[in-house]
């Protein structure tokens, strides 16, 4: 079972003064990074299991049907889960968890390949979205760092950022569904915009 123990170990080691201040030798820094990366990856799996449990009405987690993934390289537009083809039948389910003790409204920003997507909240209401082109600097960073750090050559760079607003209760979660937009015109409250660079 995944646990957070390896992340705890890595964080403990990274309390050394050279790790905190950036005065370690490069090979030591590489070791800190490797331990933190492994620990974060294990902790991420734990969180994915926990989310499967809390989003399922079944009594025990082992039967939770949905498996989650997260994206740590969103800042360079690398997120295999959101770049996959989203069909009318199978939605992309986004669970947003708020770790703080107050209600939050914030904006989610995910890379996608399709410009005809609709976002609905857990009550089925369409919510406003905005598409923004992924810029060339981000695309080139994505190519370099994904290959250097993950050892894979990512396929085509996603074309757009899909942006929408989420509202999450304190220390709670909310679910949003992203699907191929087949009924966009029928929903007057739903606005979608695609802004081009001037």
């Amino acid at each position, binding site marked *: 079972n995944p646990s957070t123990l390896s992340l705890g170990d890595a964080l403990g080691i990274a309390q050394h003064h050279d790790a905190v201040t950036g005065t370690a030798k490069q090979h030591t820094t590489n070791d800190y990074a490797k331990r933190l990366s492994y620990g974060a990856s294990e902790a991420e799996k734990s969180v994915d299991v926990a989310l499967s449990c809390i989003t399922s009405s079944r009594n025990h987690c082992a039967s939770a049907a949905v498996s989650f993934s997260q994206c740590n390289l969103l800042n360079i537009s690398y997120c295999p889960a*959101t770049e996959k083809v989203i069909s009318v039948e199978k939605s992309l389910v986004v669970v947003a968890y708020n770790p703080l003790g107050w209600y939050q409204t914030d*904006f989610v920003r995910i890379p996608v390949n399709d410009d005809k997507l609709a976002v609905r909240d857990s009550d089925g209401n369409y919510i406003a979205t905005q598409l923004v082109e992924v810029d060339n600097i981000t695309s080139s960073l994505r190519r370099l760092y994904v290959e250097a750090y993950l050892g894979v050559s990512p396929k085509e760079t996603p074309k757009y950022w899909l942006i929408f607003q989420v509202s999450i209760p304190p220390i709670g979660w909310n679910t949003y569904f992203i699907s191929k937009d087949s009924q966009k015109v029928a929903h007057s409250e739903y606005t979608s915009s695609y802004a081009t660079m001037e």
Partner: protein
Amino acid sequence: NETIEIGPGPFKLQFSSTSGQLKRITNHRTGVDIPINQSFLWYEASSGDAADGQASGAYIFRPDGAPPVPSSSSVPLKVIQGPLVDEVHQQFNSWIYQVIRVYKEKEHAEIEFTIGPIPTDDGTGKEVITRLMTNMVTNSTFYTDSNGRDFLKRVRDYRADWNLQVTQPVSGNYYPLNLGIYSTDGKSELSVLVDRGVGGSSIKDGEIEIMLHRRLLYDDSRGVAEALDEQVCVNYACEGLTVRGNYYLSVDQFGSGAHWRRTFGQQIYSPLLLAFAHADEESWKSS
């Protein structure tokens, strides 16, 4: 025609359409309006000199004494405006890129910087800063957090508990930032929050600067025995690191900024966690 304004709500940023640079920050709800300029510069790292052989390195921040070099005076920009977010993309030079975002219903700016790889082929190490310049009269005073906790008053070239002799006018006034830095003129507050540990200061009245990236050529002889020059390599082709991160900018009436610095600072530290799955919506809801 000379000004481009972004911000879907009461929080507005104005840019010069000729220079491409930020020139004014306004919050129409609170009435705070501050002329401002934001730019990137770098300190050239000292390699040691006749008077003092100390080089700038991993432990030591020691500029060579010259004023910092501005990255550019004119900045090409692209503007994107939509119902949820307005963005301004600025290319300061071939290795400094910035996106400023103002989201609907938010009263601050998110500034995403991308810096690197810092060129060193001219034989100098560089310590890159972003600097915000206003006309605020701040009386040598600014405030920085104490390890993420209370903001403490800092006075340039002064320590309350000993007689400070300043030998390094820049680095002697640098403080570590984990949460942020702000300054005030008794009418308004200008606050910057950071997403990572950085160094920051106010070297002149009305200015705030934070150091975002460094690439150095010499070891500072304090123990690490390596120059601060981490690289990223693909197929044995290597280049200096590129950093990408965010800092956040707000203006408030005097005495009102603390709420934003506390609550939004917590949101930077503990952001929403996003998890993704592909599923049939109806079966998802039924379970």
